[in-house]
């Protein structure tokens, strides 16, 4: 793999996204220090201080495009930054986290370079100096192993799948200014509104508690939210309850919602329809709580409790709270 890997590191409001650091960590594993270069690139306004956090993953260099024009996201402006970095470094691969921004930016930039892009990559396999990308197809019902036959290829890596490896202390990676002027910006973010209610972001959460029609009504979300709070979990939902207007679509897990891969997924009163399983079946541990012993979710669950969610979940919350306080 000559020329190494360029990794776009996403920041919003001065916070580096953890999933970007996961992608950077994977790049470092695939391109070992001293053998292949890993270059991080980051864009924004007043973001120089973020280099310290990025350095912990030990990129060989960090390219920083720090400019008022990059304060808010614009596909075209950020694509100009990424393009400038690519032209400068001539990498073999460009990585980013598989987020709204990561896909938006890499797809656009890949087309600019007439290069392929693989999204939502779950695994990378070294293959004679190249990388093969494994990605889920048909919402995880099967997988495809892809090869790239071009000198440059782009990939977005699924959050929570690639281990984050940060050094406790170490040297600051050399920083270089990337001076870019984005001249053709015809669309840009004007404002950002934080979504209501969600304390932990679903696609990056390592624990998810999800509710389906079995929770009986929206008045029972607090029962699940209490469990979320003890576990530091994000709240997910089935489509049935989203369609019933019990909760916003941002919470939906599944084929027409989010694909998630947490360490622990607790499905509460969810039947386990194929479209729901599609979004969460790659979770490490699945717990199902359902009053119907025949519910399909139990075939996919690591652990199951047959019972009423409204009885089981409060008890579980209490038990975990005890565990935390010990």
């Amino acid at each position, binding site marked *: 793999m000559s020329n190494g890997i360029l990794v776009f590191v996403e920041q919003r409001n001065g916070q580096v996204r953890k999933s970007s650091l996961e992608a950077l960590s994977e790049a470092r594993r695939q391109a070992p220090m001293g053998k292949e270069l890993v270059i991080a690139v980051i864009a924004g306004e007043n973001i120089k201080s973020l280099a310290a956090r990025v350095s912990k993953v030990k990129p060989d260099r960090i390219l920083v495009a720090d400019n008022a024009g990059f304060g808010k996201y614009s596909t075209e402006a950020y694509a100009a930054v990424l393009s400038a970095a690519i032209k400068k470094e001539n990498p073999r691969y460009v990585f980013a986290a598989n987020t709204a921004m990561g896909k938006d930016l890499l797809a656009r930039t890949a087309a600019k370079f007439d290069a392929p892009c693989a999204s939502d990559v779950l695994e990378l396999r070294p293959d004679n100096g190249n990388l093969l990308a494994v990605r889920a197809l048909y*919402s995880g019902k099967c997988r495809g192993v892809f090869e790239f*036959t071009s000198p440059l290829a782009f990939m977005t890596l699924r959050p929570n799948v690639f281990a984050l490896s940060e050094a406790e202390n170490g040297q600051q990676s050399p920083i270089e200014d990337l001076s870019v002027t984005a001249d053709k910006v015809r*669309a*840009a973010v004007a404002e950002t509104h934080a979504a209501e209610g969600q304390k932990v972001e679903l696609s*990056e959460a390592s624990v998810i508690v999800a509710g389906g029609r079995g929770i009986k009504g929206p008045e029972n979300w607090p029962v699940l939210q209490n469990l979320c709070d003890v576990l530091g979990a994000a709240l997910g939902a089935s489509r049935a309850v989203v369609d019933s207007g019990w909760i916003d679509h941002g919470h939906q897990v599944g084929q*027409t919602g989010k694909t998630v891969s947490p360490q622990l997924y607790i499905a509460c009163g969810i039947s386990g329809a194929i479209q729901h399983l599609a979004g969460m079946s790659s979770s490490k541990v699945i717990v199902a709580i359902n009053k119907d012993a025949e519910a399909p979710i139990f075939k996919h669950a690591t652990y199951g409790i047959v*019972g009423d969610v409204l009885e089981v979940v409060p008890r579980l919350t209490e038990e975990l709270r005890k565990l935390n306080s010990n």
Partner: protein
Amino acid sequence: MKIAVCIKAVPDTETKIQLAADRQNIDFTGVRFITSPYDEFAIEEALKLKEKHGGETTAFCLGGPEATDVLRDALARGLDSAVHVCDASFVQLDPLSTAKVLAAAIADGGFDIVLCGHQGSGTDNSLVPSMLAELLDWPQANIVVKLEVEGGSFKAEREIEGAHEIVQGSLPAVISAQKGLNEPRYPSIKGVMAARRKEIAQKDAAALGLAGKVGSAQATMKIKEMTMPADRPQGRIIDGDVDTAVKALVQLLRSEAQVV
């Protein structure tokens, strides 16, 4: 205004996926095709834009014979015309090649806006709309849940992790739809009848000036092999009354699974 909608014919979301013998694709035997779910929101938004601003709506579908039914369905919902982009060389296309073909089909049409779904069900790429925007040299907004178009510009609300972004930009533009953008209407009986009489235009590689330029041979991202995910090990139902079961579960989560 002139509105293009890109729709993809995909296997029904209920489909039990099996691999073809060569493991390069799924086995399409007996598979029922539907309009990719997010594309329904794109179709609906096109109809709403036309209702508000007047104009003309055209559906584009790149694919094999399965495209005909979804294009008919789009016409039945009220789109004015349909283009089936089809060529023997357009098989196993990677997202970039798909975008190139769609761009060639759309570029000269004088469109003000191209509406897509934000993700094609099955291939699950979420790449084609942005690639299309770049190839057309237009701005873009993806994963859009609210759209306003007025006098040559657009304002789109898009769903990102834990927030919504308001993107403002100029037309022409590519917009990809997320659930929540609207409530897709069903085709009316009258619409279905009218759609039957409508002609679906055909465009092949030669007509698009792409003969020998785009195809599985030219694609730079190739599938080597498809695999089925490993079966999850048989799970365990924890018996006992609520109290006993919950205690046992916490114990297992802690010592066996080590996730709490």
